[in-house]
Structure formats: structure tokens, C-alpha cells
């Protein structure tokens, strides 16, 4: 089974400030292990929403393009993994071990891929 793990944004990720060198190293090691275990289908960070757009479709009308940034920081996505896993519980347990040194904390949403 495969699962999409979405890391939610915060003020820093939206500000384009990446992780500290320490955090990058810790994350790197975490990813290396995931990779070595054959877990990773892909892993990507997303640039801040100010670089993004939304496209809104309304019936048959010409789609509208709205520039970022978007206000609901905590609901936005900062990064994603697509992981191989046995079950939701399996992947949840795995991701609980993500190194997260941000004192403000963080949120991840994990959803099974509809196969």
C-alpha cells in the first residue's frame, strides 16, 4: 500500500526559511533510513505559497488564477512523502519518529492512496 504524508506549513516554511543545517542533517539521516528500508516512493519539499497559485473552476467558466500567498498557513502543505507501508498504523508509527526540533511543533496528515 502507499500513503501520502503531507507536512503542514508554518510561518518559517512560508517565509522561505529552510531548516537549520542541524535539522537538515537530522532529516537527511531519517530519509536515508527510510530510503534504505525501501519506503520512499518520493519525497519533496514545496516552495512557499507566495510562489504558488490557485486555479478556481466554476462550472464552464474560464478558470481563474489567484496568486499566492495564501492565508491559512497551518492548512497549507510544506512538503510531502509518498511512502510504501503495510497499513496506516505502520506509517503513523514510522512518521512519529520524524526528527522535529521546532519548539512550535508541527502537523502531518497521512492518507492512503486510492489504488
Amino acid at each position, binding site marked *: 500500500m502507499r500513503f501520502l504524508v503531507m507536512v503542514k506549513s508554518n510561518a518559517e516554511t512560508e517565509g522561505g526559511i529552510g531548516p537549520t543545517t542541524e535539522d537538515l542533517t537530522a532529516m537527511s539521516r531519517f530519509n536515508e533510513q527510510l530510503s534504505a528500508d525501501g519506503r520512499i516512493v518520493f519525497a*519533496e519539499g514545496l516552495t512557499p505559497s507566495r510562489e504558488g497559485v490557485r*486555479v478556481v473552476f466554476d*462550472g464552464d467558466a474560464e478558470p481563474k488564477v489567484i496568486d499566492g500567498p495564501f492565508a491559512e498557513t497551518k492548512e497549507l502543505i510544506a512538503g510531502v512523502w*509518498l511512502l510504501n507501508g503495510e497499513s496506516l498504523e505502520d506509517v503513523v508509527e514510522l512518521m512519529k519518529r520524524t526528527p522535529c526540533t521546532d519548539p512550535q511543533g508541527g502537523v502531518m496528515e497521512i492518507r492512503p492512496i486510492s489504488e
Partner: protein
Amino acid sequence: MRFMVIVKANEDTDGKGPSAELLAEMGKFNEEMVKAGILLAAEGLAPSSEGARVVFDGKATPQVVDGPFTESKELVGGFWILQCRDRDECIEWIKRMPNPGGEHGEVEIRRVAEASDLENMTPEVAELEGRLRAQIAGEA
């Protein structure tokens, strides 16, 4: 460049799969992107009731919250990852997409970070740049 195109869902569409008609149209659209050589990934997500959130709140163990998350304004229904020359090209493709949400649909397009993005913006670098800017401003 790589772009993630996030298809939004809402209470009505959360995991309820597209109609046969929309499925067929989306299939054709995906096919066009394959023929153009730009499609790197395309997936739909199971309903949020089958998902979970892991909340890191500074406590020793992260908390796990089960779905559904339909109260969320930013529910994700599916995504694509596309290779495009620039953001304009990605937008142009997405404008041709069949309306993903029946009457009202929405997608978000975000550029995937590359190595240069990550290297350039560690907090240390950002702080250094901030200090430099302040210094220059002070000397002006």
C-alpha cells in the same frame, strides 16, 4: 522544474470518487500530459476518514488524531506532479483540466523545491543576509 498540483476536496467530494464522466475526462487529460512527456505522478487519495494526523506539539510523544477532517478548509483529494519549463506552462496545462469539483473545483500549484532552494535559505544564511542588508542600510 517540477510542480505539485494539489486537487482540493470538500465535504461533498471527500473520497467520494469522481463520476464516471469526470473519470473519463480526467483519464483523457492525464493521457494528454503523458503524451506531452510532463506527467511524473498522478494519484487520488482515499477519504480523509481513512487517514490520520500526527501532531508534534513539543511533548515527548506526538499525538495521533484520526480522520475524517472534513471541517478542514484545505482538504486534499488528489495530486499530480508535473515537469514544466516554468510556472506559466504549468498553469496553462492546468487551465485545460476538466473541472475537478463538479460545480466548483480548486487546485493549488506549488513549485517543488530544488537543492539550490534549500541551500540558499538556512536560517543561518537568512540571518546573515539580514545583517548584511541592515549594514548596507546603515551605511547608506
